[in-house]
């Protein structure tokens, strides 16, 4: 699954997202829901400018880096989520379910990281009761 497919899945899962762009740490556009490259580049540049302004804003407490933001305007909302390697920005209509949008964007980043093989540990599949029982019996027999 490539980055474009990851974004396609995102917009299919989250009906609230109108447009989204996935940007690499160096600023290059990995994928976008917009049709032409110029529009995607403009969206990515604007999203990075927003992140830059957010990083420069004064904060009330804490010292950790900025990981996500939401901007609510009368025209719509902007969401940005980032990890060390990528940034995903999305635009929704006004008054979206913020928690769901953030969840979907984080899932999108995880899928993009898995697709590019970051070497980060992936969540292990849940073991069924049967598999767990087999694992226990295996330990006993060895």
């Amino acid at each position, binding site marked *: 699954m490539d980055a474009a497919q990851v974004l396609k899945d995102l917009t299919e899962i989250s009906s609230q997202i109108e447009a989204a762009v996935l940007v690499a740490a160096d600023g290059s556009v990995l994928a976008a829901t*917009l049709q032409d490259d110029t*529009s*995607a580049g403009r969206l990515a540049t*604007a999203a990075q400018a*927003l992140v830059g302004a957010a990083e420069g804003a004064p904060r009330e407490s*804490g010292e950790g880096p*900025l990981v996500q933001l939401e*901007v609510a305007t*009368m025209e719509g909302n*902007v969401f940005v989520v980032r990890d060390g390697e990528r940034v995903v920005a999305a635009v929704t209509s006004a008054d979206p379910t913020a928690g769901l949008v953030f969840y979907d964007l984080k899932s999108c980043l995880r899928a993009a990281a898995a697709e590019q093989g970051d070497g980060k540990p992936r969540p292990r599949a849940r073991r069924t009761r049967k598999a767990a029982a087999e694992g226990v019996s295996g330990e006993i027999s060895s």
Partner: protein
Amino acid sequence: MVRFLRRLLGLITLAAVAAGAAVVLRRRVGGSRERVDLYFEDGAMTSFEEGSPDADRMLGFAREVIAAARAG
């Protein structure tokens, strides 16, 4: 006595409707305010309401993001 109870019931109903309308109106007005919420890795969160210089700067960039998204 019956007339008094009817009037009382009417007043209570009117007060309940007015209170409900006030809550809905407050939610709508409050919910439509422009704001910026920043979340940090350590769990800290900072919120900026419209009107502050920092909020207005970020709101300007956000409008550019929305315009770019909808132009494409």
